C-alpha cells in the first residue's frame, strides 16, 4: 500500500466518486433551481470540512463557526452591495450611491471601513484574512491560557452571540437584522440568471475540492497525527516537547478560513447575507451537519451536509407545519444509533461487504490486506 501525501487508495476512490457526483450526476439530473439549492448546501460543507479538522481531528469543539461563515459572507456581500448601489441604481434615495440600508438609517456618506470593499482584490484577501486573523486572536487568547473543551465551546458561542448583537445593533453600517439583500453583479457580471448560477456552482465545487485537498494534506501530514495525538492525550504531546497551543490555533484558523470561504460562496450563490447565519443556532446546526456526516471523515462531512439540508428542504416542502419534528428525529436517531455518523455506517457496514465481494472475486489482492483501510475511521 502506497501512502502518498494526499490519500490512500480508498480515499482516492471516494474523492473520485464525490467528484463525479457533484460535477456530473447532480448538474445533469437537477434543474437550475435545485442545483442552486445544492450550491447553497455546499457552502455549509466548507464549514463542515473545517470542523472535521478542528473538532474531529483536533478535538476542539467550536460552537461559533457561524462567526467565520458570517465574516466571510459579509466581506463578499459588502463588495457586491457596493457594486449594486451605484448612483444610478439608487437615485431614489436621499443620498444616492450608498447602500439602501445606510440611507434608511440617515447615513450620508460611506463609512471608512466600507471603502476598501470597492476593490475585488481587497475583498478576496479580506475573506481569508479577516476571519483568519480573528481566529488567530481568539485561538491565541484561549489556547495559550490552556482554555479548552467545554469552556472553549461556550466562549465561541458567546462570540457568536456578541457578533450577532453587534451586526443587528449597528444597522446603519451592517443592514441590521434584514441583512444585505439584493446583491446583483460581480464586476458587471449578473450573478442572478440561470447560466450564472450554473457557473457559480462549478466554481464553488472547484473551491470545495481545493479545500478537500488541503484537509487531506493536513490529515496525512505529521501535523494531522499530532492533532489526533493531542485529542487523545494532550499532556503526553505537551511533555514530548510540542507546543500544543500552536497546533490548536492552527487547526482553529484553518477551520475558520474554510468557514469564511463557505460564507463568501453563500453570498455569491444566494445573493444575500444576514445575521441569521452568524448566531448560535446556525453555528450549532453546522456542527450537526458534521456530526451526521461523521466528524472523523472529510467526505462524510460533505455528504452529511447535503443529506441534512436535502431533508430540511424536502421535509419543509411536504409538511410545512411538522417538518422540524422530523428533522429533530433524524438527528437524534443518527447520533444515538451511529455516533460516527454516515461515515461510520459506511465504514462499519457497507465497505467491509463491498471489499469482501471484491476479495472473493480477486483471490489475492496484492499489497492490500482486507479491512486495513476503512474510510471514515481514523487511519491512525
Amino acid at each position, binding site marked *: 500500500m502506497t501512502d502518498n501525501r494526499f490519500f490512500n487508495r480508498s480515499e482516492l476512490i471516494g474523492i473520485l466518486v464525490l467528484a463525479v457526483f457533484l460535477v456530473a450526476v447532480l448538474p445533469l439530473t437537477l434543474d437550475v433551481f435545485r442545483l442552486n439549492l445544492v450550491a447553497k448546501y455546499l457552502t455549509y460543507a466548507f464549514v463542515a470540512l473545517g470542523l472535521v479538522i478542528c473538532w474531529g481531528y483536533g478535538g476542539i469543539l467550536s460552537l461559533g463557526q457561524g462567526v467565520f461563515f458570517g465574516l466571510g459572507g459579509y466581506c463578499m456581500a459588502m463588495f457586491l452591495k457596493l457594486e449594486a448601489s451605484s448612483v444610478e441604481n439608487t437615485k431614489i434615495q436621499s443620498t444616492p450611491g450608498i447602500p439602501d440600508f445606510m440611507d434608511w*438609517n440617515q447615513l450620508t456618506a460611506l463609512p471608512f471601513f466600507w471603502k476598501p470593499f470597492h476593490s475585488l482584490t481587497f475583498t478576496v484577501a479580506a475573506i481569508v484574512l479577516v476571519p483568519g486573523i480573528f481566529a488567530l486572536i481568539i485561538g491565541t487568547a484561549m489556547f495559550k491560557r490552556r482554555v479548552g473543551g467545554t469552556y472553549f465551546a461556550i466562549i465561541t458561542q458567546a462570540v457568536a452571540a456578541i457578533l450577532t448583537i453587534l451586526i443587528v445593533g449597528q444597522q446603519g453600517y451592517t443592514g441590521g*437584522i434584514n441583512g444585505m439583500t439584493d446583491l446583483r453583479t460581480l464586476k458587471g457580471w449578473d450573478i442572478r440568471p440561470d447560466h450564472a448560477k450554473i457557473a457559480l456552482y462549478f466554481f464553488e465545487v472547484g473551491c470545495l475540492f481545493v479545500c478537500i485537498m488541503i484537509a487531506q494534506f493536513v490529515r496525512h501530514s505529521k501535523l494531522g497525527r499530532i492533532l489526533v495525538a493531542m485529542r487523545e492525550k494532550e499532556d503526553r504531546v505537551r511533555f514530548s516537547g510540542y507546543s500544543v497551543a500552536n497546533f490548536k490555533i492552527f487547526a482553529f484558523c484553518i477551520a475558520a478560513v474554510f468557514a469564511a470561504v463557505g460564507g463568501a460562496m453563500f453570498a455569491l450563490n444566494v445573493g444575500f447575507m*444576514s445575521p*441569521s447565519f452568524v448566531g448560535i443556532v446556525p453555528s450549532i446546526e453546522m456542527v450537526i451537519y458534521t456530526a451526521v456526516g461523521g466528524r472523523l471523515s472529510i467526505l462524510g462531512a460533505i455528504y452529511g451536509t447535503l443529506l441534512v439540508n436535502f431533508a430540511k428542504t424536502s421535509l419543509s416542502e411536504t409538511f410545512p*407545519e411538522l417538518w422540524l419534528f422530523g428533522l429533530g428525529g433524524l438527528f437524534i436517531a443518527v447520533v444515538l444509533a451511529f455516533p460516527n455518523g454516515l461515515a461510520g455506517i459506511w465504514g462499519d457496514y457497507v465497505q467491509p461487504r463491498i471489499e469482501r465481494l471484491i476479495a472473493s472475486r480477486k483471490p489475492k489482492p496484492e499489497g492490500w490486506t482486507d479491512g486495513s483501510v476503512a474510510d471514515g475511521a481514523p487511519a491512525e
Partner: protein
Amino acid sequence: MSDETNKGLLSPLRRKLLMGMAAVPAITMLPRTSFAQTPATSAVNTTGLAVTDTEVTVGILHSATGTMAISETGSIEAEKLAIEQINAAGGVLGRKIKFIQEDGASDWPTFAEKAKKLLVNDKVAAIMGCWTSASRKAVLPVVEQYNGMLYYPTFYEGLEQSKNVIYTGQEATQQILAGLNWIAKEKGAKTFFFIGSDYIWPRTSNKIARKHVENVLKGKVVGEEYYPLGNTQFNSVINKIKLTKPDVIFTDVVGGSNVAFYKQLKAAGIDLAKQPLLTISVTEDEIDGIGGENIAGAYACMKYFQSLDNPNNKAFVPAFKKMWGEKTVIGDVTQAAYLGPWLWKLTVEKAGSFDVDKIAAASPGVEFKGAPEGYVRIHENHHLWSKTRVGRAKLDGQFELIYETADLVEPDPFPKGYQ
C-alpha cells in the same frame, strides 16, 4: 365550471384547437353555457403560469414555525379563508384557486428560497406572503427577477415600491400621522417618549413620528430608546419615563417583548388610564399574550379592529371564527392578509388575464368593497388607500374604536419632508 365532468370535455386536442383559435369566440365550440365565463387558458395565461382550464395555483408563504409563527399564523388562516370564499363564489375567471403552502420558518433566506421555489418550480400565479420587513426584503429581489406577484399584508416602514408587490397593509405615514394628530389634539400632548424594537421598521417609524412631532405638532421628543428584538428588561426605560413625565408614550416594540414591557409598566405603577400611551405595534393578537388587564387603557393606531361595526366585518368575523375556532382573535395584519387573495381576484378579473405584467398594470384603481375594514382601493404606488383608526384597549382584549379619519388616507411610501 365546478363539476368534474367538464374536465373530460377539454381533451388535449380540444385545448390545442382552442389555443389555435384564440381569435374565434371559444363558446361556440363548447356544448355547455357555463363556459361562457371561462375564457380559454391560452388567452388568459400567456407566460406559462400554473393555470389550467379548471384551476389556478397560488402560493402561501409565511412562517409556520419559528418565532414569527405566532404572528403569521393569523395571516395564513385569513388567506385560506379568503381563498375558500372565493372558490365558493365561483373562483377566478372560472378557475378554482389551489394553494401551495410553504414555510419560511422565521428565517429570511428560507423565505427567499421558498419564494423562488414557488415561482420557478410551481409557477404560481401570485404569492400571498411575508410578514417581517426582513423577509420581504429577502423575497423582493426574487419576485422582481422571476416576475412574480407578491401580496404583502403587514404595516411596514415604507421607502419601497415595486411593480411586483401589492402592499395591503399601511405604510408608516398612513399609520402614524393621523394617530399623532388625534392624540395631540385630544390630550393636548406636547412631549413624547419613543420606545421601539431595534430594527428598520421602528427606527423608520420613529423617524417619521419625530419629524411630525417637531415640525407639524410643534412638540418635543423627550426620549427615544431601542431594545433588541426579544428583549424582556424594560426597567431602565420605565425609570426614564417616570423621570421625564412625557405627555404620551409612543411605542413600536414588537413580538414577545410586549408582554414584558406592559407587565413592567404596570408593576412600576404607571396607570395607562392616566398616562396616555399610543402604540402602533399591538393588535388583538399581541393582547392575547400580554393580557387585557395589563394593557387596558392604551391607545393603538391601526386600520382595523376586530370590533369594527360594519356589515362586511360582521360577516367576516363569524366566518373566520367558524373556520378557525371560537377563540381566535383577528388583528390588523390578519385582516390585511385577508385582502390579498380578494384584491388579486378582482385585479385578475379587471385585467382579464393572469399575466403578472397585466395584473401589475391593472392594479391601480382596483377597489374592494367587501373589505372588513370598510373599503379599500389600490393606489398607483401599489399601496392601499385606507382609513386610520385609533382604538382603546379593553380588559377583554378587544379595542373600542375611539377615532377614525373621515376619508381614506393616501399612501405615501416616500414621504417628502420626513426622510
